[in-house]
Structure formats: structure tokens, C-alpha cells
């Protein structure tokens, strides 16, 4: 008897404690957890979502993340793709709002061009050095 009373009290206690741990509401965005019906469109949306950063869990793409804001972003991407918008236009729309950080696809800008230029310069430099060294040796070999 006392035991069942105790468990009843415990249950009531737990029941009233739960609302204090209120969780974020699931996004009402329609395509957060639903794929597009058209497979070609879904494929395009998926490719774009894999190259967009979740703003909350910043190491993940919005395709991988379960954060609610990522759900909102997925739905935004899918709805716009379904409306016939170009994936790169959607990416630009997001970059306009969040900066380059939101995109995993690097762009060449006034800030990032050295990242692309330096490897090319190093390869050319290596080529020039090797040619000087081995070119000279070959000449020597022809003489011998």
C-alpha cells in the first residue's frame, strides 16, 4: 500500500517536473524531415544541403545536422528547389545573409585567391628547380 502510494507520488512529481525541461518545438517547416516527391529535385536539394553549414553545430552540414535551425534551412532549400530556383542562387541568398562561412564550397575572392595561387606558384617553382638540377645533369650525360 505505502509502496504504491510512493510510486504514485513519484509519478506525479516526475509529471510536474517535465514541463520545466521544455524542449525546442519541432520546426513546422514542411520539408525539414521530408524529401521532395520529385527525385531529381530531391537530388539537387541533397547536393546543395551537403555543402551548406549548420549554423548551430558548425562542423556539420545541414543535411547531417539534427539542430532545429538546420531543419528550417533544409526546408528552405527544398521549397526553393521545388519552386524551380537554381541551387547556386539559393547558396548566394544564404551567403548574402551569413557570409561565406555558411557555404562549404570555397569561392575565389580578394581574400581567398592566395590559397589557390600559392600551390600553383610552388609547383612552378619546383618545376623550375628540378629542371635546373636535372637538366644540367642530362647535358653532362650527353657529353660523356
Amino acid at each position, binding site marked *: 500500500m505505502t509502496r504504491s502510494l510512493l510510486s504514485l507520488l513519484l509519478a506525479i512529481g516526475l509529471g510536474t517536473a517535465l514541463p520545466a525541461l*521544455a524542449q525546442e518545438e*519541432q*520546426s513546422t*517547416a514542411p520539408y525539414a524531415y521530408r524529401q521532395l516527391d520529385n527525385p531529381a529535385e530531391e537530388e539537387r536539394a541533397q547536393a546543395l544541403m551537403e555543402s551548406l553549414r549548420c*549554423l548551430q553545430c558548425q562542423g556539420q552540414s545541414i543535411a547531417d545536422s539534427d539542430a532545429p535551425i538546420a531543419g528550417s*534551412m533544409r526546408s*528552405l532549400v527544398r521549397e526553393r528547389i521545388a519552386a524551380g530556383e537554381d541551387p547556386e542562387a539559393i547558396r548566394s541568398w544564404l551567403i548574402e545573409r*551569413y557570409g561565406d562561412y555558411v557555404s562549404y564550397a570555397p569561392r575565389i575572392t580578394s581574400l581567398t585567391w592566395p590559397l589557390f595561387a600559392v600551390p600553383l606558384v610552388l609547383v612552378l617553382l619546383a618545376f623550375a628547380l628540378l629542371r635546373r638540377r636535372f637538366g644540367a645533369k642530362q647535358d653532362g650525360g650527353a657529353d660523356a
Partner: protein
Amino acid sequence: MSDLPAHKPRRWVIWLPLALFLGFIALVLIGLLRPADRNVASALVGKPMPAFDLPPALPGRPGLNSKVLTNGTPHLVNIFASWCVPCRVEAPQLAALAEAGVPIEGISVRDSTENLQAFLDENGDPYQRIGADDDGKVQLSLGSSGVPETYVIDGKGKIVYQHIGEIRPEHLGLLLDRLKEASR
């Protein structure tokens, strides 16, 4: 070894790889030891507020249309939610701002009417209007990456400042300064 080029490299050149390596180590150490800023700021600061029209978050209260932000007086737009703990922390500061006569408009993100009502009953209600952004689209269109965030909008609807995270007491002066600048 005898077929190496005859000319010797200059003496300092042999130290060059070590110097480069140490420079690289220094760079890595700086990157490791300096705490990185993980906030994603909106790129829309200095640009006009995107147009939106949100339905009321509470019955009997007005929703939020971006047109009210162009009525000539500066506004604060506070992005918040009942499920967000820092939003509770900033509630007294928002109340103080509302008391100082600052019009505060709310955008409630991914929330429900019951939870929102309970949150306002508990923490006070400084808002003139509260728009319900249930799918988070307006939050995305403003370049906001989380809650709470507070935007200062000048009388013409231009975003002049974005405050990321909760407003603590020490931020009040800064926000009031920004509002004063915006009213000029």
C-alpha cells in the same frame, strides 16, 4: 656525392627551413591558444531589413510586419523563444529598455502559444508586437543564427546593429547608444 653542384649555398640559407618550420609552429600555437569566435554575424548589418509579415504569436495581440520598422523611430527587434535559457537571462534588461521607452518588437522562433504565454507570464512581456516564426524562415532571412539575438533598426528600416546572445546589464549602455545614433 661528387656530382653535387660545386657552388655552396650561402650559410644563412641552411637555416631557412628551420625558420619556416618555427614560424609555422608559432602560427598553429596562436590558432590553438586564442579562443575562436563561433558567432556567425549577420551580413545584413548596414542593409535594409528584409520584408516580412508574421502572424500573431498570441491570440489578441498584433503580429509583426516589417513595415512598422519604417515609421520613423528606431526599434529593437528581439529574436527569442520560450525554450531558450539565455532569453530568460536577458528579460530584465529588455524590461528596462521597454521602460526607457524603446519600442521592442518580438520574433518568436519555433515556439508554441502555450509555452510562449507561460514564458511571458514568468519573465515579463516587453514586446509591442510578437510575430510567430514557426518554421524559422524569417530568422533565416534576417541572417540570424540563433536565439536570442537583438537587431537595432533605424527609423527607415535599416539594420544598424546586431547583438548576438543575451543582453546583459553591461550591454544596456551600448544598445541605448546605438539607438540614439539610429534616431539621428
